[in-house]
């Protein structure tokens, strides 16, 4: 693997181009197991060379969706198209997809070499070509000196690499990754995340990753689909998902966020005053186009790092500001999370980067403070 300086963001966004044809299309997919509906009427397009993440809590149907693409499950309704061809009835051993399993599923009675060669042998490639490809794969995952070992003689990180090499050996059109990094420790996981993106750029393959770890999804993918109870809540780039979640669910699932319930007082469009909210006495103004009308119950969502914190009151204390006292402090090294208890009892989370060293920290428990934010810091959620 050529060592580059981490992943370079590509100018890659086929989903915004109406003329581009999706590589994989899930069309009105429903999957039921007995009375349980794992996936419900789901439609999703994934484009060629995209690194796509299915993100959601366990039981949200993301793994089922991936297993349907691999051919281990048949959809109850709807169809899956790969390059325009319906995959219905095509068994897993004839699909141009390969999967890296959560448990790695390495064959314990075969050496690393044999594991990687397994898929190639099924294609009845000439021996020399198989050997060459295996060597190339071992080099790719930096495991050349482990070729003759059995999986039980490898560490978790090495096994994960073998599993990756094995699933890449056949150069599948789509690589499916089922919680691929779940079993690794944090440092190794972060390293591998960057290697995965590198690898995907180098090989130019389409990757579909299933994960419940939002950080992992944000780091590696071009687009994320956030799923809940068999339904897709939002499909967007990591930045859009984080900065412009379309619902309370997505906002809450991705990262840390303050959600303040309230009602719309006035709504006159972003250009002329924006939305005014009344949240049980706390007045909030937002520059945003919003489909809701006066009186509707909505939620105001703002990330902790966008909440400003200070001892002095801001210039305008009538809107987007409240006084309270420091209730708890979470020191996380790179930044500190302040829990501010407002005078009305509400708790607002404000994050502050620890630019100065800890000894100089000016705020402590019980201090009277002001929290305030700008009109474009948060957004109104109607769902």
């Amino acid at each position, binding site marked *: 693997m050529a060592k580059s300086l981490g992943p370079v963001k590509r100018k890659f966004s086929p989903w915004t181009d109406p003329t581009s044809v999706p590589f994989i299309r899930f069309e009105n997919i429903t999957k039921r197991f007995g009375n349980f509906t794992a996936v419900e009427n789901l439609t999703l397009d994934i484009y060629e060379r995209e690194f796509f993440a299915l993100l959601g809590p366990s039981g949200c149907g993301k793994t089922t969706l991936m297993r349907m693409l691999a051919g281990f499950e048949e959809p109850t309704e709807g169809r899956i198209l790969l390059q325009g061809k319906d995959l219905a009835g095509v068994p897993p*051993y004839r699909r141009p997809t390969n999967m890296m399993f959560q448990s790695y599923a390495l064959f314990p009675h075969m050496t690393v070499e044999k594991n990687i060669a397994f898929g190639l042998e099924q294609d009845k490639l000439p021996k020399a070509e198989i050997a060459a490809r295996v060597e190339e794969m071992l080099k790719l995952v930096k495991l050349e000196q482990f070729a003759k070992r059995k999986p039980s003689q490898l560490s978790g990180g090495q096994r994960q690499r073998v599993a990756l090499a094995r699933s890449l050996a*056949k150069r599948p059109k789509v690589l499916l990754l089922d919680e691929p990094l779940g079993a690794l420790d944090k440092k190794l996981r972060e390293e591998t995340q960057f290697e995965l993106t590198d690898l995907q750029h180098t090989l130019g393959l389409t990757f579909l990753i299933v994960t419940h770890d939002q950080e992992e999804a944000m780091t590696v993918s071009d687009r994320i689909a956030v799923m809940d109870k068999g339904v897709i809540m939002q499909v967007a780039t990591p930045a859009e998902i984080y900065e412009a979640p379309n619902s309370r669910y997505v906002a809450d699932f991705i990262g840390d966020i303050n959600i303040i319930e309230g009602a719309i007082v006035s709504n006159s469009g972003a250009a002329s005053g924006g939305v005014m909210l009344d949240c049980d006495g706390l007045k909030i103004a937002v520059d945003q186009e919003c489909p809701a009308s006066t009186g509707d119950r909505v939620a105001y969502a703002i990330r902790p790092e966008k909440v400003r914190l200070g001892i002095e009151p801001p210039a305008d204390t009538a809107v987007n500001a409240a006084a309270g006292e420091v209730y708890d402090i979470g020191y996380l090294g790179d930044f500190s999370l302040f829990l501010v208890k407002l005078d009305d009892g509400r708790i607002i989370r404000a994050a502050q980067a620890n630019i100065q060293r800890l000894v100089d920290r000016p705020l402590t428990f019980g201090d009277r403070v002001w929290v305030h934010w700008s009109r474009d810091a948060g957004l109104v959620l109607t769902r």
Partner: protein
Amino acid sequence: MKNARFDATVLTLGFAFLYIPILILVIYSFNASRLVTVWGGFSLVWYQQMWSNQGLMDAAWVTARVALLSATIATILGTLAALTLVRFRKIPGRLLFSGMIYAPLVMPEVITGLSLLLLFVSLNVDRGFWTVVIAHTTFSMCYVAIVVQSRLLTFDRSLEEAALDLGCPPVKTFFRITLPLILPAVLAGWMLAFTLSLDDLVIANFNTGPGATTLPIKIYSQVRLGVTPEINAICTILIGLVAIGVIAASLATKRNELRRQRDEHAAAQG
């Protein structure tokens, strides 16, 4: 301390009760005297005599062939039964089937033997070598099924899915992935079936016919005419074979279990 001595005594008595009769038989098989109960010095003469006893040797040969054949057939059928019971959870009456597979374990042998005899008689099948093979296959199959079933329950299905995913069709997947991994259990099942067939008297007695006298039947009928040191000799060999079979089967299971534990341990350590 007192407790420890009590435990040791109980253990010794228990083992003595179990093994002294067998030990006596083994010792007397090396007796030089023709009288079974009088020690006349060490000798291998009965082992030599045994070899030249045509009736005994024929019976031994029949037993060996029956055991090999029935164990092999029982292993194939038992493994298939185990696969079906573990894998196809949706077949109707699965619970009934899995209960039924244990039935021969607790069924009195007399009843198993008699019912098979009735079957063969009603089908008008001449009793002989093959009916004994069939009878032994039926009752040892369930032992194989149980041994293999317990292995399959802990088998990681994603290994098979991985093979399918890499382009390997289902039947080939079974022979390349599943079978090699459950092989120790299958072999243990075979060993068990083999030894069960080797020492079965009751079921064989019901279903045998002319020219298909197994060793246990032969021994039993000879003993009625008086115990000869020759019988002791052949019994000693039989004991040896059965012991080796049982020990090998349990060692295979044990070793496999140990290896799995070690692998799991290694995996946990990363």
